[in-house]
């Protein structure tokens, strides 16, 4: 027990005096930026792909788009996130001769990757909306796109909100691998503290607690959002 207290003291010393907290804040910031921007990019891509996939396919263009989208989804769901990060950073960027920081690459890859997952979630959400809603919109003379945007997608989003919350949580957790491409996230921060004190027990414990707290807070936010969107279901 004494030795544990010693370790905690050591941790606090490095955390405060050797700028450990700066690294941790920086790591937290990067973790959140990657997850949030990744999610936003993912939502945009996801809605686009999901819409393409539910458009009636009489014409040739929707069919071609649909083909492209299924290849995209297959590709990004087929490989682990770490592999995608590594391929992007060490294969694509040099080949295309583009320079990007680790964080930028991480945001991009997280966005592209979550776009593939979100498109499937979104498609399920759109298909879960009663087809009568689309029919009613078309019957009053609204176009497919307008009915989709004003009637179907808002209901789909409400239906999939819990799943989207889980997707965001999954993204937060997956950010722990971005150090593979040199992005400084929470793991890098606590690893720095650990290496400076030759002591990893407390830093990794604190890291675990921070991740768990993050996830708890997000779950709570999703619940609140769900409740405020749920008003059209309530009888009053």
């Amino acid at each position, binding site marked *: 027990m004494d030795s544990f207290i010693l370790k905690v003291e050591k941790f606090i010393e490095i955390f405060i005096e050797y700028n450990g907290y700066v690294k941790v804040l920086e790591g937290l910031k990067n973790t959140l930026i990657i997850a949030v921007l990744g999610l936003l990019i993912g939502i945009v891509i996801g809605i686009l792909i999901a819409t393409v996939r539910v458009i009636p396919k009489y014409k040739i263009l929707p069919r071609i788009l649909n083909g492209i989208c299924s290849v995209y989804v297959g590709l990004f769901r087929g490989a682990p996130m770490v592999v995608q990060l590594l391929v992007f950073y060490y294969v694509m960027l040099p080949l295309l001769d583009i320079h990007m920081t680790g964080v930028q690459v991480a945001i991009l890859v997280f966005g592209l990757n979550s776009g593939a997952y979100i498109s499937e979630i979104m498609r399920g959400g759109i298909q879960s909306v009663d087809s009568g809603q689309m029919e009613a919109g078309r019957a*009053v003379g609204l176009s497919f796109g307008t009915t989709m945007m004003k*009637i179907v997608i808002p209901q789909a989003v409400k239906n999939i909100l819990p799943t989207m919350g889980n997707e965001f949580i999954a993204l937060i957790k997956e950010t722990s691998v971005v150090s593979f491409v040199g992005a400084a996230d929470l793991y890098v921060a606590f690893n720095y503290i650990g290496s400076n004190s030759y002591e990893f027990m407390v830093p990794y414990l604190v890291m675990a607690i921070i991740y768990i707290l993050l996830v708890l807070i997000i779950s709570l936010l999703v619940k609140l959002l769900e409740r405020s969107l749920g*008003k059209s*279901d309530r*009888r009053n």
Partner: protein
Amino acid sequence: MIDVINLEKHFGNNKVLNGINVTIEKGDIMVVIGPSGSGKSTFLRCLNCMEDPTGGQIIFNGENIADMKVDINKHRQHMGMVFQHFNLFNNKTVLQNIMLAPVHVQCKNLRKAKRQNVLRKCANCFRKDKKELNEITTTKKQIIDTAKEKALSLLKSIGLEDKADVYPSTLSGGQKQRVAIVRALAMNPDVILFDEPTSALDPEMVGEVLDLMKKLANEGMTMVIVTHEMGFAREVANKVIFIDDGQILESGTPERFFGNPKNPRLKDFLSKVL
């Protein structure tokens, strides 16, 4: 108003409609009856191209809307539709349900007119004889205000003005269907299509919906109604058609239709439902 010429519809190999010919005049109340699965809904849904006909023509206001090239959304704005399961927009309040389409369509037209004016103004700088600009007499706010006023007065006419701001999930079936009818009315349609509007209702709510439909009929609305309510057909319709095997086997005034049916299938059908 609607001329249906040789209308055909098949789903894959399943031939559902096999050459339907019928004319719906302005002010007609046409009731469509027939056994389950005979193609009544398919016929009705072909009238506004919710199902694309696979053959024949549907001439509405002088244009063949079965042609894939026409702007079907334009025509649907003049054809209301009421569904068996109401299909109110769940994410919109009752008032928003009624206002949505009128406001959207008019605002879209307004934007289009404004856009055209900008282009014409530019082009006019290079023209000798200037082209006239679209007259813009309204604003977005006016459109919304008028639509709201109209929606509220429609709601009042069905006694639901106090429900304007609630969501559809809080309404009873009969209330939902009456709101759905009013939603169709808000577009000032030339004709309203009803697909079994009372079939999903509890018996005690059927009356309120039929009463509203009767009121519309008396006001001269053109209506095409698929229904199993024979009493209603007899009382309100001026034309009844019997569809089976994808064809109109008999049609006529309700007196002749119910009083002196000729087709054996119709006789058989009527003996079962009456």
